[in-house]
């Protein structure tokens, strides 16, 4: 079974802090994704990566950056956290393109 893990289930940070969210997948998938999920808005794509060191902006990249130094690991970085970045963050991976995506358990981030 594909396993996607995220570094934290819950995280509380202060405004202005730099925040790192880590995601690891164990199935040698090419593509990895970061979404945020907010009530009534569904899942919105922040960034995705189709190869090591490659990244593409999704629908809402502002205020975020990403890093993919190894195939199995995709990090989401909030350079200076703000209260409007309080959300559930979901990582996913797929074999290719936007094919069937496997999601991690999510990180609920609260910025105070």
């Amino acid at each position, binding site marked *: 079974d594909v396993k996607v893990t995220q570094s934290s289930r819950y995280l509380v940070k202060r405004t202005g802090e730099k925040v790192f969210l880590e995601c690891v997948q164990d199935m040698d998938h090419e593509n990895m994704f970061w*979404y945020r999920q907010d009530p*009534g*808005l*569904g*899942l*919105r*794509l922040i960034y995705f990566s189709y190869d090591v060191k490659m990244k*593409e902006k999704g*629908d809402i990249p502002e205020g975020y950056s990403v890093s993919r130094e190894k195939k199995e690991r995709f990090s989401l970085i909030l350079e200076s956290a703000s209260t409007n970045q309080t959300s559930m963050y*979901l990582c*996913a991976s797929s074999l290719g*393109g*936007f*094919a*069937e*995506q*496997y*999601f*991690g*358990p*999510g990180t609920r981030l609260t910025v105070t």
Partner: protein
Amino acid sequence: GQQVMQIPQYQHVQEGEDFTTYCNSSTTLSNIQWYKQRPGGHPVFLIQLVKSGEVKKQKRLTFQFGEAKKNSSLHITATQTTDVGTYFCAGTYTGNQFYFGTGTSLTVIP
């Protein structure tokens, strides 16, 4: 811009009743996927539809892709309490664009 609209946002049904959620796009989709997210869980892939007019079934779940590839539906026959959760569609457009719908939250009353 391109996006996938999903209705209804919420649906409460008595156990045993049917349930349908709809997704609509203003532009043609390359394909559409459906996911289920249980309360407190993460989205889990159900199915992908690619062909115009395609219909696929998984036990009590029936998935349809419209002839114009601009809409899709998920129908559940005789709902059970295990069907509780939020159902999302997700559409892929040419140019490598991908959008989730806003989801339909299903509550099943025993």
